[in-house]
């Protein structure tokens, strides 16, 4: 358990992706089975332990620690899991804290404390007993085997057998959701690094494997064969596009490339093999539970690639809704029937990987498109349609279309070579994305925060605002977003210098910089879209904001008004 606890401890404080990958792959390399497999399961959300409620943990700690001392501690630490992990009194402690009051007559002595809560420790050695702390594998297997009524007693014994970091890790495990800034995809990338594989290979075998993943590690370490994707309806790694650059424009002719709209939904792969239906995200997570309405409508045999959108059926065809409607269905593990009915999901298909039982990935796009059209035509459930091809004669036609898309949910164009096979990863050439020019706004820098890693001594995270009418008359700046990239290294140094010279207030790692009508720094911020948001003071949340230009020439008074952004949402 110690190595796993150390790993979590380190990951939670490490901002850099590369450093996280290094920590993860080192851990997977140095940790024996089955511990590393259970750690992998915990990190990828594949471990389903019987949940333990925070109230139960509070009850356990209340039996051991004076409620007043616990209260002071919780106030100070601010996080329940961490407070319990730290405050939990070790049984072997030579100078334990007095037990909670109640029924005790005389002043406490060391013997009183030590004798207070002696219990059978059920097979797991207590900390400091010389047998070491229990392994992660032992902990997980004990938790998996425990019945509901055995739960609290087992957790109590485990807390006794671990040190503070181990207790924290245990509480994270049993309360569900590690929340340490590691995605399932990152964990899989670390596995790929460990075994010298492509992440696509990991994703392809992933479904059908179960904790503690012994065959997977054996394969990665060259001791075993590649695990066969034993499960029905496996995920197949997706093909991604490169951004179209100016020098590529000459390649784009109607003979070489097909054009389609680029939909701003979520990329999904729908698979139906002999009645087994899966709905995968582009990283291979099964998202069917979040979109049961769409999953139930995958009535064509094979594997198709497309965009999940929210929309309405109108006159026999599907009309896509806005991105904010789609938002209602995102970031949910499951969905209520009411929400599913109000914001129905559908799939706009643009490629086929398996047609019936036949793998067609090696066929050119021209042939796959024909197969896709025939396949989608067979769907009766009314939730799958085709992403239409966009006709064009010259690349100039496309440039015009790209600037005037027919629907707001379109974020540009996709260009696909007619003769290219379906190839996992992001090959250069066969697929291009040509995004609509971003929106921009002139905003005023309000706060700056120091970055991490290479940027840890630079103020590199910027909160910026635009003007709005102030309550007492006049105008005030209201924050509308935060950006931490888009600038060059030279620009970063300039902004950093500005921040250091113009600080008016400090809040920990954050500096407030001067931002009056006359003094301050105007930033041209590019972004992809706006949404209404109750969580921001301005009522607006910006998608994908980045610094496009520094406007040293512009006085803050001439920066944009919030009305300009509100008009964008309305439009």
């Amino acid at each position, binding site marked *: 358990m110690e190595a796993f606890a*150390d790993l979590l401890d380190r990951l939670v404080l490490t901002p850099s992706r590369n450093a996280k990958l290094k920590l993860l792959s080192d851990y997977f390399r140095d940790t024996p089975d089955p511990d590393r497999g259970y750690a992998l399961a915990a990190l990828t959300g594949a471990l389903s332990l019987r949940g333990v409620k925070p109230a139960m943990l509070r009850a356990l700690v209340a039996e051991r620690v004076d409620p007043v001392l616990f209260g002071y501690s919780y106030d100070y630490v601010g996080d329940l899991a961490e407070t319990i992990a730290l405050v939990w009194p070790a049984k072997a402690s030579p100078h334990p804290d007095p037990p909670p009051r109640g029924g005790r007559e005389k002043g406490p002595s060391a013997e009183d404390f030590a004798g207070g809560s002696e219990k059978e420790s059920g097979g797991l050695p207590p900390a400091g007993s010389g047998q070491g702390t229990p392994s992660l594998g032992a902990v997980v297997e004990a938790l998996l085997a425990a019945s509901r009524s055995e739960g609290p007693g087992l957790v109590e014994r485990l807390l006794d057998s671990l040190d503070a970091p181990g207790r924290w890790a245990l509480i994270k495990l049993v309360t569900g959701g590690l929340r340490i800034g590691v995605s399932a995809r990152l964990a899989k990338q670390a596995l790929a690094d460990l075994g010298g594989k492509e992440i696509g290979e990991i994703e392809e075998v992933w479904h059908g494997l179960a904790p503690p993943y012994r065959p997977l590690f054996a394969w990665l370490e060259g001791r075993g064969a590649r695990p066969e994707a034993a499960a029905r309806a496996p995920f197949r790694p997706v093909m991604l596009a490169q951004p179209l650059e100016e020098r590529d424009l000459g390649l784009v002719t109607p003979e070489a490339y097909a054009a389609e709209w680029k939909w701003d939904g979520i990329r999904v792969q729908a698979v139906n093999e002999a009645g087994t239906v899966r709905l995968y995200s582009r990283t291979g997570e099964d998202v069917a539970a979040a979109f049961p309405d769409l999953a139930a409508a995958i009535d064509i045999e094979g594997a198709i690639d497309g965009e999940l959108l929210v929309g309405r059926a109108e006159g026999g065809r599907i009309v896509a809704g806005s991105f904010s409607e789609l938002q209602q269905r995102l970031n949910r593990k499951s969905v209520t029937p009411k929400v599913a009915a109000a914001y129905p999901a559908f799939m706009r298909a643009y490629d086929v990987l398996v047609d019936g039982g036949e793998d067609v990935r090696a066929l050119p796009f021209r042939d796959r498109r024909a197969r896709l059209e025939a396949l989608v035509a067979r769907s009766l459930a009314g939730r799958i349609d085709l992403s239409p091809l966009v006709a064009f004669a010259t690349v100039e036609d496309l440039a015009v279309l790209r600037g005037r898309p027919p629907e707001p949910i379109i974020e540009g164009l996709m260009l696909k070579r007619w003769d290219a096979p379906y190839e996992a990863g992001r090959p250069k050439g066969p697929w291009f994305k040509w995004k609509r020019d971003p929106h921009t706004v002139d905003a005023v820098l309000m706060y700056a925060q120091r970055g991490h890693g290479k940027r840890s001594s630079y103020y590199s995270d910027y909160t910026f605002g635009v003007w709005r009418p102030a309550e007492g008359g006049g105008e005030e700046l209201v924050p509308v977003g935060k950006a931490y990239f888009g600038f060059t290294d030279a620009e970063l140094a300039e902004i950093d210098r500005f921040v250091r010279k113009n600080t008016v207030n400090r809040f920990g790692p954050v500096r407030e910089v001067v931002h009056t009508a006359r003094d301050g720094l105007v930033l041209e911020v590019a972004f992809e879209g706006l949404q209404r948001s109750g969580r921001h003071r301005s009522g607006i949340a910006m998608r994908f904001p980045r610094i496009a230009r520094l406007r040293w020439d512009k006085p803050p008074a001439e920066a944009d008004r919030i009305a300009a952004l509100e008009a964008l949402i309305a439009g």
Partner: protein
Amino acid sequence: MMRPEDLLCPGPSGLYSPLGDFYVDPVRPVPRALVTHGHSDHARAGHQAVLATAETLKIMAVRYGADFAGATQAMPLGETIRIGEVAVTFQPAGHVLGSAQIVVEARGCRIVVSGDYKRRPDPTCASFHPVPCDVFITEATFGLPVFRHPSDAHEIGKLLASLEAFPERAHLVGAYPLGKAQRVIRLLRDAGYDRTIHIHGALEKLCRLYEKEGVALGPLAPATVETGRKAEFAGAVVVGPPSAFSDLWARRFPDPVPAFASGWMTIRQRAKQRGVELPLILSDHADWDELTATIAELGPAEVWVTHGREEALVRWCELAGIRARPLHLVGYEDEGEE
């Protein structure tokens, strides 16, 4: 018997002894000051006369210049002198080099002012010497049951493991310049780390003083661009005051791992707020178990609690049937860099 308050009582300038007409660790200039140790919130410049250990006097001279007080007197540990009606003895506190508890005794009443202290062994200073007493004045910097400092070896092990995992990154260890910095360096040496350790300029004089006082620190080099190019700091250990790591100074190091050696690092949110990636729980203060064990061991009739989380330690004493009260002294760093 007299009231302990006649021997020592809290006032706006610090603890004052009416019977001896002196202050302990006064926060303002006074005619006569007894100083427990060299940290700046306890040892201030500008007193007319200072009584402290020889090491503490040297530390004050390094920090404030040789003329930091009108007169100084070095107090050997374990010896007793009389000031007015009061017998005064200094005993080691185990906090930093030269740190002492001050024992004051008159008319059959003995008060021990612990100053800042810790109980675990520290290779850079003499260990805490327990003195039974009527009143024990304890610090409470880490006076909450969440603070249980792990072993030094475990924490130094974390640093060494990280150096091995990230050999291309400089490890910047924030450490209070007096005591903590030298202890971190000494602990690294004890763990077998023999490479040159780079130090920030703010540490130089104090490290030299420690060496002169017999604490060997091994090869040290200033962490300046003149002595090393960026690439030469790859995999290096750099020790400096925590505040320096948000400065321009830190830019000279390649993709640094920010570390911080402090008892506060027990709390993850504290580490996160400061951008610390590698928290090292190394403290020169007693943790909760040491605080409570020390009170239990000394068995005083009364405990006075100062600077820190006073209310929790008072509560513990109350549960243990020991009279206790908070002193609410002002001027000591509650949330200090430690």
